[in-house]
């Protein structure tokens, strides 16, 4: 039996008719047409499905859509500041070669965004710890760490500039 779930996705209020057993991941991908969030395992092991719910990164595969009732869900599709301005992390991922096949990328971007928001100047160990639930099998992580460091520095610089203005 389907029930109506009302939630906010990337700032837009949505109401979706879903069955009680459907995961948030399948609902985003199959019902809401937001296929940027990926399914690499469906059991919490890979982090490809990481989305941010009410400010906290979670595995969308381990949450039911009905549990998102009344909540605020953010996915990779909402990361850009505007149609033609990428988030500094997205830009850094491109420049540093942090995305090869790209399958892990949306999940890692969401996780990294949260990491930098909480900790604008993360150490290498903090970056590694923050991304330990996200598997990337292509890059060996080195370029991902480079990109996160570089985006964090850029965001700090912009912020410092804003404060002096």
């Amino acid at each position, binding site marked *: 039996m389907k029930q109506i779930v009302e939630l906010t996705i990337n700032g837009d209020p949505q109401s979706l008719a879903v069955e009680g057993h459907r995961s948030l991941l399948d609902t985003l991908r199959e019902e809401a047409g937001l296929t940027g969030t990926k399914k690499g395992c469906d059991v919490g092991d890979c982090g490809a499905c990481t989305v941010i719910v009410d400010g*906290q990164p979670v*595995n969308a595969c381990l949450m039911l859509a009905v549990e998102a009732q009344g909540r605020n869900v953010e996915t990779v599709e909402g990361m850009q500041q505007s149609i033609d301005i990428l988030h500094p992390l997205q830009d850094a991922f491109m420049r540093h070669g942090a995305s090869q096949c790209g399958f892990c990328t949306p999940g890692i971007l969401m996780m990294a965004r949260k990491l930098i928001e909480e900790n604008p100047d993360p150490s290498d160990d903090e970056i590694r710890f923050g991304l330990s639930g*996200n598997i990337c099998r292509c890059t060996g992580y080195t370029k991902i760490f480079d990109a996160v460091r570089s985006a964090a520095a850029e965001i700090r610089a912009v912020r410092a500039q804003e404060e002096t203005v």
Partner: protein
Amino acid sequence: MRRFAYHEPKTLEEASRLLVDLGENAHVLAGGTDLFVEIRERLRDVSDVVNIKNIPGMTDITWDPAVGLTFGALVTARQLETLPGVQRTYPNFAEALRLLASIQVRNRATVVGNLCRASPSADTIPPLIADGAIIHIYTPKGMRRMPLAEFFTGPGRTRLERGDIATGIVIPAPAPDSGRIYLKHGRRKAMELATVGVAVSLDRDGDTCTNARIALGAVGPTVLRASAAEALLKGRKITDELIAQVGAQAMAECTPISNVRASAEYRRSMVGVLTRRAVKTAMEATQ
């Protein structure tokens, strides 16, 4: 995922009644980080899922120097992990939380769910047993409480009966001069289920150990207390020889099995290594 019916009771009574009425394939849903994995991997037949997250009164975390730390069944691992008070007062528990799965999982996973799943390798069980935690349970006949050490009856099995819901945990306040350590052994630094987990909580008087509790994870059907090893420590001055004896005793007390993660022999020798390291560090730790 297999299909199931979803329920959202608003009270403990309602949830409990649903669980009784719906029968053995109805299960409590807290964070879902075990439940959904078991459904997907077809380890569990589930007809009904009873989400307890809309039941009020199980989200509080309180600290009282006389009572200790109290938290409700819906408190997530990540909430506790990031509390400075927990890191300071219960570094063993904080370490177990830090090493449990990933941040994403810990944002959903509840500690009480980790206990109710009753996996012999669950990370939060050894430090909570070593610290003498008490679990609170709603039963159709009224509230119950029991020491966590008595809660587990086998792998995946607890004293919870149909219609019972665990509502929270109390971890007693540590004695003034005490050291508490949790060491987890796995082949990766994260996203590992413990091959062996050892928790040691010691009360001290100078370099004498006045009281000791040792809990061993992933080396028996439930997390085990190494009581003979504890007895060796009690009232004794800690020396390297004693530490070696305690390690050997803990090895003798565990009952590991061999599986894809490690052999029984290896697990047993890790109990020795980790117990020695944990006792040593717990004696040195200043808290």
